[in-house]
């Protein structure tokens, strides 16, 4: 029973990921006074890409084809690590937040390899930029999660989320506020959203992720796009689970889950609307300002860790 629920949770995250992207795109369109595409558009895109021919550059090696598969695999594995509806996950082990962080990093690493293997200069440029961003984002991500782990006296994600569920929702702790801001900033960088990277641009000077996947087509591109959407959803689910898990079932009972599912979806949609609002109101940062952006996140994450000692 419990395993079945955990499997369904992980599949839910993977299956609804394109929908979240669609919601963000739709809300953004509304904010910009356009009607916008249907929220199910990303599914149609994926379907279309899966049917198309998968072209590989002449200069590319087997790595080029392997990279999207590895990316998708590790991202789905990451989805299985995050507690969604109740404080437990399919692959819950002690210390799994570190596993989660580095699973995502392995995915990025392979995309960077694939991009450089493609042989185009854009791929190399995008890969080097991605390397810079991911190096800078790693410290605040780990430190932010560490601070909540210290509070929960446990390094397993399930225990951290359980601690958050049992907390009094009115009890605002400085650690959680700082860690949330730091992790939200990192999440923007990790998922390539607007102040750091623009997922809809194909402008040479600014693109990071798009430059890396420029050579990909067909099923490979579909896997990358899907994995990217899953990554966004996983990080959103992580933020919701660690910082606003209210409504989550404390045990795996059917009634609790029936409440937890709509609560989770509502929180995800609120977060998606927030992302759309931020993306519509902020201009993309210059590449050289990205380290400054992530530096602020790192400072806040360090402050969050120090505050765990101050507030006990």
């Amino acid at each position: 029973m419990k395993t079945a629920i955990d499997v369904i949770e992980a599949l839910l995250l993977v299956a609804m990921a394109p929908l979240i992207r669609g919601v963000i795109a739709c809300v953004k369109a509304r904010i910009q006074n356009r009607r916008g595409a249907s929220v199910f558009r990303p599914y149609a895109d994926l379907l279309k890409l899966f049917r198309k021919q998968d072209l590989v550059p002449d200069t590319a090696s087997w790595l080029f084809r392997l990279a999207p598969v590895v990316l998708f695999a590790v991202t789905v594995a990451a989805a299985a690590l995050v507690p969604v509806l109740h404080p437990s996950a399919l692959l819950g082990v002690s210390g799994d937040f570190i596993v989660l962080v580095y699973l995502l990093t392995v995915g990025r690493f392979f995309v960077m390899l694939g991009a450089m293997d493609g042989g185009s200069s854009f791929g190399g440029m995008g890969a080097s930029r991605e390397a810079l961003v991911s190096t800078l984002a790693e410290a605040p991500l780990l430190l932010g999660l560490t601070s909540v782990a210290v509070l929960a006296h446990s390094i397993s994600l399930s225990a951290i989320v359980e601690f958050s569920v049992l907390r009094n929702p009115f009890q605002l702790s400085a650690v959680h506020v700082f860690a949330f801001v730091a992790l939200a900033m990192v999440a923007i960088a990790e998922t390539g959203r607007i102040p750091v990277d623009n997922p809809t641009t194909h402008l040479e000077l600014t693109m990071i992720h798009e430059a890396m996947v420029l050579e990909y087509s067909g099923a490979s591109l579909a896997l990358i796009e899907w994995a990217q959407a899953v990554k966004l959803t996983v990080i959103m689910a992580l933020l919701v689970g660690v910082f606003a898990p209210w409504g989550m079932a404390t045990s795996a009972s059917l009634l609790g889950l029936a409440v937890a599912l709509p609560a989770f979806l509502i929180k995800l949609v609120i977060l998606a609307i927030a992302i759309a609002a931020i993306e519509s109101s902020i201009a993309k940062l210059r590449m050289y300002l990205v380290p400054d952006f992530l530096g602020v996140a790192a400072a806040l994450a360090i402050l969050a860790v120090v505050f765990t000692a101050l507030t006990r």
Partner: protein
Amino acid sequence: MGMIELAVAKALASSAVFLFVTVLMMASAKRISACIILFGAQSAVMAAQVLAIAYARHSIEAYAVATLVIAVKVVAIPFALFRIVKELKAPQDVTASTTATQSVFIMAGLILLSFFAVAPYAKTLRVDEDMLAAAIALLLTGAFLMVSRKKALMQVIGLLVLENGIFLAALTTTFGMPLVIEIGIFFDLLMGVFLMGLFVFRIRDTFDHLDVSKLRRLRG
């Protein structure tokens, strides 16, 4: 009734967090108007604090002080500053001499410093350590804002943040000063902002910019 008590308790317990958040955001803010909004938000948090104390102690004077805080610091001063920004027609960026990362790191250090500074006194004075630390942190960060930002308007905002710190320190250690003194302080503050506003206009007219780091020579 239960809800009001709960809200009061939480306003007292968690307002320090909001104050820290506002100063840290000021450290990373790039536009003067963002800083003004943050100052207004900071004052609103203080007003909530005063209201909570007023409710907890059933003090009419504290209610009056809360009204003054809202009228002067949440409405009048930000409005006046926005007016100045609009009339100046000058570029909006704060032109910091430190990067946002450095500013946030320094502010974080100042916040920690204030926690260590108040730790010995908080016990003997029997006041909330977080709030006293927040007061000292506001003092230090206000001073830091004045030192590290080059635009003349940011000096005004830094001074206002500093004054918020003094107000909060008085509030936490003595549960507010007598009403007459508070009124005097608020009047002073309002006059100060107007005078500084005049100064800013004079600087702009004489030097054609607001960068105080370039005010090296006397001009007639």
